[in-house]
């Protein structure tokens, strides 16, 4: 463990029992102990074994991040905690729906930029588009920033999901 008081980001994958209250336990831990949550996603990933996977993006000093992992790991319904940031190369993806409202030249510009960002049009009216895009948070941030002067009306984002690269899996 480094002595540094520097903050770092951590993407933490948590395999948990898919049962009532488990998300409240995790969120309560973060609010009760004053940890940051940048994003948190959860969904069932294995119906047969009743497992859900939670992905948490957080920031803190090394000591705080170690605490977060230890605190998560001691929750009774938690099977596995993995610090993807520390464990090696990993992928992070987020899904966003972005509504842009505008007419004339703004519509053309919106479509052109969407094409460059590989965003798909999933809904269109004569004065609006909804774009769907996936990517890391920075890419979505950049796209939203470009859309703002054009007519950004609404954004809905999932928060990050993440996975380590390579053949190894996150076993329960």
């Amino acid at each position, binding site marked *: *463990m480094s*002595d540094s008081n520097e903050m770092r980001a951590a993407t933490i994958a948590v395999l*948990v*029992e898919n049962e*009532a*209250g488990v998300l*409240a*336990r995790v969120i*309560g831990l973060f609010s*009760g102990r004053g940890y940051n949550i940048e994003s948190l996603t959860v969904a069932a990933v294995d119906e047969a074994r009743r497992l859900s996977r939670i992905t948490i993006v957080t920031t803190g000093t090394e*000591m705080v991040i*170690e*605490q977060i992992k*230890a*605190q998560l*790991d*001691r*929750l*009774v*319904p*938690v*099977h596995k905690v993995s610090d993807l940031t520390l464990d090696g190369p990993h992928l992070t993806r987020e899904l966003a729906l972005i509504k842009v409202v505008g007419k004339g030249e703004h519509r053309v510009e919106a479509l052109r930029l969407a094409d460059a960002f590989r965003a798909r049009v999933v809904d269109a009216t004569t004065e609006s588009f909804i774009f769907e895009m996936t990517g890391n948070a920075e890419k979505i941030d950049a796209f939203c920033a470009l859309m703002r002067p054009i007519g950004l009306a609404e954004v809905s984002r999932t928060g990050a999901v993440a996975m380590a690269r390579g053949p190894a899996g996150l076993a*329960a």
Partner: protein
Amino acid sequence: MSATSQHAEPAALTMSGAEVVLRALKDQGVEVIFGYPGGAVLPIYDAIFQQNAIRHILVRHEQAAVHAAEGYARSTGKVGVVLVTSGPGATNAVTGLVDALMDSIPVVCLTGQVPTHLIGNDAFQEADTTGITRPATKHNYLVKKSGDLARVVHEAFHVARSGRPGPVVIDLPKDILITKAPYVEAPPADQPHRSYRPQVEPDMAQVRKAVALLKAAKKPVIYTGGGVINAGPQASELLTKFVRMTGFPCTNTLMGLGAFPHSDPQFLGMLGMHGTYEANLVMHGCDVMLNIGARFDDRVTGKLSHFAPTSKKIHCDIDPSSINKNVKVDVPIVGDAGRIIAALIEAWKEDATQPDREALAAWWRQIDQWRGRDCLRYTQKGSIIKPQHAVKRLFEITKELGKETFITTEVGQHQMWAAQYFGFEKPNRWMTSGGLGTMGYGLPAAMGVQIAHPDALVIDIAGEASILMNIQEMSTLAQYRLPVKVFILNNEYMGMVRQWQELLHGGRYSESYSAALPDFVKLAESFHGVGMRAETADDLDRVIREMIAIDRPVIADIVVDQKENCFPMIPSGAAHNEMILGPDQEGNAAMVTDEGKVLV
């Protein structure tokens, strides 16, 4: 349960949910439940009525039920069991649950709940018990299917007692208690839980690293806490063996008193905010610190940046989240305290290095010098009873009588004086609210201890303010003929509040005077007990002896010096070497920085 079914169906459902709960408790070895009935748990009370295996103790307030279960658990090493109703029954229990969580005490608390179809409807006596108790427990359950009932009860006991122990709540909707439910046996002890698997055995490589550090130490200290007590009496025996093997000084936290014999020359006394001069200076000056089962609590460390600044630290804890939480350590060892000490003994023998006896002798000479300050010295002169003297005499008289003695306390000055002046030779004899600091803990805890040890002498060392927080339990004592002794150090102040106001707030004693106190002698009598009072130093011994001799609940109202403060004291925000030793020391208030004033 005479369940001889005539039908061919496998596993015929012959028991109600309530009966399944009781059967599971019995199979878990439960002998006593502390509880209070109400609408939602009537089916369990009906089942209790129809059996004799488990005894129910009717408390007078649900908070007291949990503290009684804690007292029972801490004095026996078993899981304490609580039964309360829904809504207010559950919310009243919350303070007790948090108390057990902070002090790592194994408790299973059954709460009634409105029937499943009414959950969420704001029904009568409904509360979101699992929501409210989630941060108040190690784990909690809401049983929504009869099929889960027996498994959940068994699992709750496993979770409460294993790893770092703690309270577990099982919320039981009334329909689940009435509906027929299947019974399943507890899983075999060696069958691992799906997700919860605390590490018990230490990593030997880490243990050897620790021993190498200890062997090379010139100024070592062994600092142990409640984890050693929780690991069972054999862990305390191993600790004593290890400390004597090494020749190192040993200090205990408030929670850890009794793990190492008080009378042993290697014992430095308690450390921390009101610890001894020698214990705190040893902590401050040590070069290698071995922490076993303590958590570097702020009451122990004082100012973190000045805590044991020159030491290498070894931290043994069953809870990985305790490690590097407050204090960064050099050698962490995760595991059960008893197993770790056994491993340390083994590794100490295997390691051929000879410890530096010369350095150690010099260290002991230094320690003896610090001891020479006699930091717990007080002067008892005149007729006004010094509170320290009252505890000291209580200790000496009980020692002289040789009775098996258990001490509980409330919270405040009297608690610290009890920790300082009552010596414990064995573990599980000392029950105090350390982490949460719950006033009103001592009387119900003593009740639980007395239930577990009917022939022992059980004394609640109390203050006149704290005792009023659960005074209703005098009625429980009377009902079950529990001869608990309440020893009140009565200074007519919330003493610790007053002490801080004196030290930090210019002597403005805002709301800390205990006005309109009851006559404790008459109060004892009205609760079918015996009341007595000592007003002068000459009365003290006689009252203590009479109190002990009476085989009934007693309140002894000891009228003590109102102005006495608790020393030594490390003011909040200060370091171990910045102790205030007594009232004569100059510049007491000036020692507390603004940074310190915001701390509690």
